[in-house]
């Protein structure tokens, strides 16, 4: 008798669950085309995962300092030291000017495999996807970068485009864009020799 009751209850629960399913299915918005035919909405993958994950962008190789990559060439034989400290023997040329009070090397570099970077989520990414690392804080720039507004894209306006990594223009350890020497100013009209010869003084 007891088993019978249990079975009935289980069955009831199953029926209820099914009903709930049907109800929730009915709630899904339906789309029709102009002829009135129902458009079957495929479950789009992008709702399951974050839109930017898994998307890769064509970028040139990361701008490493000469002979520094792969990092494992040296680091493979070294004992990883997760202790926050000032570096003295190596990499002492790197002066962190990027919210240095709140950050140090291993917030971005992966402790266990120096040839990769590490997101806050723990996900390990290659240097070629470093834009995801930068995008963790600079979300607005990342969004603009993806559509080609922030930063420079090369290639074709109606064809293949190549992106630049954030690090191609911004040194990740000191990201402010460095000032440039401007190209020479134009010749003033009074110095523009319309007979053809450029006066020496005209260009300064």
């Amino acid at each position, binding site marked *: 008798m007891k088993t019978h009751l249990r079975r009935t209850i289980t069955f009831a629960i199953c029926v209820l669950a099914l009903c709930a399913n049907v109800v929730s299915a009915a709630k899904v918005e339906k789309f029709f085309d102009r002829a009135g035919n129902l458009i079957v909405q495929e479950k789009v993958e992008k709702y399951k995962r974050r839109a930017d994950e898994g998307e890769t962008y064509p970028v040139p190789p990361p701008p490493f300092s000469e002979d520094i990559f792969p990092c494992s060439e040296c680091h493979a034989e070294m004992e990883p030291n997760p202790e926050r400290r000032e570096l003295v023997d190596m990499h002492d040329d790197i002066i962190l000017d990027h919210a240095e009070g709140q950050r140090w090397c291993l917030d971005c570099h992966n402790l266990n495999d120096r040839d990769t970077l590490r997101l806050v989520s723990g996900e390990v990414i290659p240097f070629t996807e470093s834009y995801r690392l930068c995008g963790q804080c600079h979300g607005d720039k990342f969004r603009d970068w993806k559509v080609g*507004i922030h930063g420079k894209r090369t290639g074709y306006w*109606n064809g293949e485009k190549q992106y630049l990594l954030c690090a191609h*223009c911004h040194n990740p350890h000191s990201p402010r864009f460095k000032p440039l*020497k*401007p190209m020479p*100013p134009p010749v003033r009209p009074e110095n523009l*020799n*319309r007979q053809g010869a450029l006066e020496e003084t005209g260009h300064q």
Partner: protein
Amino acid sequence: MCNKTKCDKSAFQKSRRKVLKGIAAGVGALALPASNASASVWEAFFQKHFRELDKTELQQVLARLESEYSKEFGKTVNVKATPPIEGVKYGYGLDLSRCIGCRRCVYACVEENNQSRDPQIHWIKVLQLDKEKGVYLDHAEHYYNPAEVPEQGKFYMPIQCQQCENPPCTKVCPVQATWPENDGIVVVDYNWCIGCRYCMAACPYGARHFNWAKSKLPKDEMNPETHYLGNRPRPTGVVEKCTFCVQRTREQPGRYPACEEVCPVGARKFGNLNDPKSEIRYLIENKRVFIFKEDLNTQPKFYYFYAT
């Protein structure tokens, strides 16, 4: 003994002879260049307006120009006349919050578009403006030359042809040597231009430039990939202007204009206004956009914007 009528007649005959002689001498003088120059001088003289050329005539014109330029610059020069791409309307975006005024675009344009090095012609002019005053042209300076840019408290605004949808320059041309193409680019037929410079007076952006003297264009710096309506070498006494690098952007697939490609800060954006997925459309729809001298109703297709 000479009666009056006879005298008059002989006088008339004398003067008629003179006139005929004069005409003969004149024709002779006109014919002079033909004796040492090729027939191309005459062909150029009698060439039709670019838009009235049929296919074979256009090919003849292009071939003539190619051989002329190849001879002049000592290398193979191509002159294309690629028509606009169907369904494309070009638009340009310039991020005023990014531009640092380094003038890389100015010189990339000069090299790409075969501008005269001397007397100097620049299609792009970069203004330095005070951040406090904003786009206030009375305070604009374009001869700035510090050791490093950007300078404190300044911002920079490059100006070039705005490729107006309602261009005042083309309307004043007395010979219709300049017109907007279907892809929105305002072009000049250098062979039809008479050099009256009305268009320069009409342009509110100072975007048109005059060839005052024979352009000095070093042979090794001459860009041999040219377009009839774009960067081919210009004769003296004609007006020229930015064409959004028509020789690059009308290719399939289309390259970016030279100024866009060289910009070290990525402030320059270019694309098809008819394509809702293009970056130019994105910035118009999502960013703060500023249209230069909008009150003149020139309807530029050049959009200054602020990405931040």
